[in-house]
């Protein structure tokens, strides 16, 4: 996500170059064709969804479906649950990956490929396999363990009000995205020299991390957080199979009874995601231009 703005600027730069050089305009035509094709691919389903939500048979245009979202049973609860899970996942995944990425860069550069592979593994494992494993573990629990803290922990992590087990699963799913964002962010600053300079000025390691590394990683951390949030808000399989009603599962449930409302919610959540993305990339651009 952090690369959004640079991509835009590159396009602008290459766009003006041929014109200045007086070269034929054909590349520009091709760019237009590609853009239109991509736009059709993305926009047609969106417009279709939107039309479906506002077009009421025999009545014509109506925004009723959007109005019903907020009054629909379970909307607020499931959205809050998903947002809460998202925030908890972000905190945990950042706490895990940031110190690890910094430590590997400074102390054991040779382990970097290993860490990269480990953090990419969740992409290879299908969620269905993952959730099958989790539910097997959660079901296991002989009665004689019923009074032990282990058993009670197993019960506690499945509390439907805030299923910690989902946070743990989402942290694993978010690892590839979080790690890659942070690693790119660390690559953009001279971590070694900066931390040595800070150490030289008397800073302890936690101080180096909090006052030197993190402030210079803001946009990378924002991008990691956003990707994680988007992932949690959209994750269906694991929550569904463990029977927790997160936001996507709520959409799925009401789609059976209120098809129009469920599509309206989808369009609505897409809109929110876009706004978040926009806020993030503009925050990133502000930081680059020098706060």
């Amino acid at each position, binding site marked *: 996500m952090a690369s959004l703005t640079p991509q835009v600027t590159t396009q602008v730069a290459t766009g003006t170059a041929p014109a200045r050089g007086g070269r034929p305009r054909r590349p520009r035509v091709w760019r237009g064709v590609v853009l239109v094709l991509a736009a059709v691919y993305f926009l047609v389903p969106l417009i279709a969804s939107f039309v479906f939500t506002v077009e009421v048979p025999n009545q014509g245009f109506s925004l009723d479906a959007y109005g019903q979202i907020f009054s629909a049973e379970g909307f607020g609860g499931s959205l809050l649950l998903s947002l809460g899970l998202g925030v908890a996942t972000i905190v945990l995944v950042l706490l895990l990956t940031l110190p690890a990425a910094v430590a590997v860069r400074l102390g054991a550069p040779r382990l970097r490929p290993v860490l990269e592979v480990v953090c990419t593994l969740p992409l290879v494992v299908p969620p269905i396999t993952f959730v099958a494993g989790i539910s097997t573990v959660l079901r296991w629990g002989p009665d004689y363990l019923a009074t032990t803290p282990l058993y009670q922990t197993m019960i506690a992590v499945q509390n439907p009000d805030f299923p910690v087990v989902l946070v743990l699963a989402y942290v694993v799913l978010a690892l590839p995205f979080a790690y890659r964002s942070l690693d790119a962010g660390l690559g953009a600053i001279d971590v070694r*020299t900066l931390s*040595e*300079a*800070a*150490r030289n000025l*008397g800073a302890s390691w936690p101080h180096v991390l909090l006052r030197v590394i993190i402030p210079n990683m803001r946009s990378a951390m924002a991008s990691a957080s956003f990707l994680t949030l988007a992932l949690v808000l959209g994750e269906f399989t694991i929550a569904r199979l463990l029977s927790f009603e997160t936001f996507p599962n709520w959409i799925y449930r009401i789609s059976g009874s209120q098809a129009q409302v469920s599509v309206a919610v989808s369009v609505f959540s897409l809109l929110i995601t876009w706004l978040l993305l926009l806020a993030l990339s503009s925050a990133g651009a502000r930081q680059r231009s020098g706060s």
Partner: protein
Amino acid sequence: MNGARVEFRGLRRRFGSTVALDGLDLTVEPGELIALLGPSGCGKTTALRCLAGFEQPDEGEVLVDGADITRVPANRRDAGMVFQSYSLFPNLNARDNVSFGMRVRKAPTAKRHARAQELLELVGLPSVGERYPHQLSGGQQQRVALARALALEPRVLLLDEPLSALDAKVRVTLREEIRRLQLSLGITTIFVTHDQEEALSMADRVAVLRDGRLEQVADPATLYDRPATPFVAEFVGAMNHLTGLVSGDRVTVLGQTLPVEGRAPDTAQVDVLVRPEAVLVTPVDASGAEGDGIVMVSSFRGSTARLRVHLGDGTEVLADVPGHDSARFAPGTAVRVGLVERPVLVSARSETGAATAVPEPDVV
């Protein structure tokens, strides 16, 4: 601010199969500016990093004012450091960069700002306090880094090639300012560089390192005039290698017999090491006898011109002549070549046998 005495004792450090430090012994006197000079990979930066606490020596110890600090963590060493690459914190402006160390020590804000301003004035940048590193030039960034390193009044100042990323003109002015500042503060300073000119012009003493060991430590004039080893002779300044024949404590070279500096080697045939300014050349006038060689290249440097002279036997000799005389030594001119009458350094003949002029290092 009073300078501390720094001692490296038998410092050894190896990285895998490469030996960075191979028993380095060196004492830096209080208030002295010492330059660690050597080719890349000679261990000079590793020595500095051992003193800063960023490297742990495998063997040996580092002492500051007699106290062993080898195992003290880097953040409790009381040594200010300026790095080769730009090391200012990008998220802080110049003033906050300078006061970073004071902030770590929880000094009150007003005091911090006043001290930061004082230091920025000291390095000649009184009005950049509000600017961020990316708004400063390379030279300005290194000045701010210097102010930051001095902010905590460290007992030792460590400079790790701080000028190498700057362009030539800035490099010269900044090195003069660093020296002036160092003298006025009286702070013990260790300056790592691979640039011999920088080392010779700034330092009280220069320590030449090779393969993790100390080759020679001496004041710049001694190092230049009386290099202790052929390596130092070649590394510092330009040097000619001429074939000579030793007999007793005298050596015959280019038809002249000169006393040998130091002990003469046992072999009869030797390399005689002569600085370009100790080579005398005179143009052969039209009526005169045959010359010894022909000027191949003449490079004008202002006060002097350096000639590359091809001798009859194929040897090349570098010779310096006064700049205003350079017109008399245009390429193609036949010249007589002699040596200034003073003791010369000799070394056992190198295996390759060919006596060649050392490639000219970049001397401004």
